[in-house]
């Protein structure tokens, strides 16, 4: 699974993207658990940062598979 980081989350991750292996289908919390294990500094973002799956905001019940592109979306500030 390809994970993209933006803005402050990219600073915390220290990389713009990351590949992690997952098997079967997993939920948001499992993705976060995996991310925080890999990059502990991302723990600080868990509460405010939304996940996107293939370019759309994930819902609480969204399931992810290894083929998905996941992005971390910290609070936005466009316009």
């Amino acid at each position, binding site marked *: 699974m390809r994970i993209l980081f933006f803005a402050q989350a990219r600073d915390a991750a220290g990389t713009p993207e990351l590949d992690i292996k997952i098997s079967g289908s997993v939920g948001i919390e499992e993705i976060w658990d995996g991310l925080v294990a890999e990059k502990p500094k991302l723990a600080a*973002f868990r509460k405010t940062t939304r996940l*996107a799956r293939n370019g759309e905001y994930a819902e609480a019940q969204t399931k992810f598979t290894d083929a998905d592109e996941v992005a971390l979306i910290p609070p936005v500030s*466009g316009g």
Partner: protein
Amino acid sequence: MKIEIQITNQTIQSRGQLENFPAGAIAEFSGVVRDLENGGKISALEYEAYSPMAENEMRCILESLAEKFPCLAARVIHRIGVIPVGETAIYVCIAAEHRGEAFAMLAEFMNRLKQDVPIWKRRAISSVAANVNLRTSGPSQPADSHRRPQKVLSLDEALAEIHSHCQPLPAVRVPLAEALGRVLRETVCAPEDLPPFDRSTRDGYAILLNDESETFQIMDTLHAADWKPRQLKPGEAVRVATGAALPCENLRVVMQENVERNGDQIRIARRESATNISFRGEDLRAGKPLLHSGAKLGAGALALLATAGNANPLVSPRLRVVHFTTGDEIIPPEQTPKPGQVRDSNLILIRSLLQKFSGNLEQSHLPENFELAKSAIGNRQSAIKHSDLLLVSGGASVGEKDFTRQLLEWLGFEIVFSQVNVRPGRPLIFGVNGSRVAFGLPGNPLSHFVCFHLFVAAALAKLVGEEPKGFLRAKLAAKLDGALNTRETLWPARLDSAGLHPLAWASSGNVTCLPETNALIRVPANRGPMETGEEVNFLPTTTE
């Protein structure tokens, strides 16, 4: 609706018209980079986007808004990369049949963009060579920042740092009954005309506007809740109650006081020019914004939301706050102090000041020793992790100077600043950890009071999405007899209709002036006494 969306790193120049539409209204908006960001002069802003998603998200927002505000076409161009001051960061153009939908669509789109579209301001590029970080100094910074020399910030610099490090927390939908005092986080538009029909403002008789008949036949009686359309003819009248929907257009209502009634006939004794009708849409047109995002919800605003049918507005969340007091000399208020001890006043002070913001406040006392404090915190780590704001009172005592600072760093906070050139309240610590913010407040009650209103309130305002209060101007009603000081001073005062009355205080440990204080006068550095009548800056401190 036709939609065009573009994310570009090029200058936005060719606005172009949205052509070939039977548009009666074309609303354009340009968001331009200003030369001020968080109080500092800048020369450019740098933006970043997750472009494919940002384009998709903007399209979805426009499509969903089009259901509410039917428009013909929309074009959005967002620039990313480094954008110099004076240049356009975003351009939006909406074409619609009428201006109402175009304005509403434009305003609502910008609000939604700022909530959901994955585009970020990354940093401000300062007009003096150095870069000013916006939020890039998040948790990625090394935790050994305390080894770097710490700068003493001015009041304005400190406020700018707080402003740039705090972000509005995600909004929540709550029932109207729970929304009082919160900040509205969506723009709410009128769903229908108000009043929704032409209605009578008097008890009387509706007749045709220019009907000069001598007598009128009463055809019907309409009460407030009745809906009985009918076309009146000359010589016909309908009895109407105040608030009743009128049966057709082009009428006037003759007050019953001006009518002589005989059975089901009336004769008009006195004619007046007033129509006595409140016309449909007179108060408000459908689609027009009623309340804008950022509005504070008082009783009146809630009544308006109810009228507009918005029973679950999108509002700021209640904050989760953890507050620690420190200091071995502190004892609870109900105990009698031994020599060297003082009663704690900060727990109740902070609890009271936070009342309108916090949904959940956890308070406890820590021993004044880093190792003991760490183990005391032990099982509260999860409360801290799930809090929005952490406050630590005291802990800057001699010999253990870095106690609060060390504690915050141990909890994962990066210290943004730890000294501000104001009195009282110089040793103020501000730290961030992701979206969480922390303050170490100097323990003296007056310092506490001042630092809360100056700094913590600024952070709270930003977290809930409110405009920061800022200083107001008023005249001194009495002489401010301050000695020359190299620091800016926040002087407790009482504001009434005569102006600002400076209150007596000698040191930051003073508490007797607190009950009277409802304003803090901002006395510039190196100013001696200030005379009665002089206009000064002040910050209101009422928290009701």
